[in-house]
């Protein structure tokens, strides 16, 4: 059984479009995250939710809006896509936000903006 799943795996779209990436975890974890990995493999946190509440919001453009309908799901909606949004986006989860426990990562969504 997949622990952290993301859909879609690949997303190719035009500049200016709006797109969503979905994430689900079946680990019973309270905390979920979105990360962005750029073409040089640098990995940076974007958002974190704990029990459906936003707890980390890094300096991410307002075009990015996370939504957590329940603690097993954390979706990422992106408005007015730009070329620079092209990256691999990873969802992750952990038992608690304190990071005493490790994070479990999804397989990633490769977003290409043309």
């Amino acid at each position, binding site marked *: 059984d997949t622990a952290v799943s993301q859909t879609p795996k690949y997303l190719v779209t035009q500049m200016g479009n709006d797109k969503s990436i979905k994430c689900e975890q079946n680990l019973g974890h309270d905390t979920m995250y979105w990360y962005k990995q750029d073409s040089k493999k*640098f990995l940076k946190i974007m958002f974190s939710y704990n029990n459906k509440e936003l707890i*980390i919001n*890094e300096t991410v453009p307002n075009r990015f809006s996370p939504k957590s309908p329940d603690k097993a799901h954390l979706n990422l909606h992106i408005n007015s896509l730009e070329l620079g949004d092209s990256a691999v986006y990873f969802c992750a989860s952990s038992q608690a*936000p304190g*990071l005493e426990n*490790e*994070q479990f990562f999804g397989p*990633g969504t490769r977003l290409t903006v043309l």
Partner: protein
Amino acid sequence: AQSVAQPEDQVNVAEGNPLTVKCTYSVSGNPYLFWYVQYPNRGLQFLLKYITGDNLVKGSYGFEAEFNKSQTSFHLKKPSALVSDSALYFCAVRQWSTSGTYKYIFGTGTRLKVLA
């Protein structure tokens, strides 16, 4: 500011030889340090962590890491490398976020290539 550094972009090692992937950190207070591995087209997988206790931490797939407070290092090691260990390795440190909770700061990653 708290940070981690991985000074080597790539490490090459022959199969069967010991391997070391380096990580140094800069934190205030006690560090929480982690190693993750990323195989091609996959998400990151947890290998091991240092929170407190023994300086030598054992993790998954035969990996271990040594916490050295005086040298502010947390190098990843394995006594005998396998070709299947070839991957991208990330060191991470826990940092207090301005949002009022903890987050990871990741190093830039080290690509390990094990040659048959």
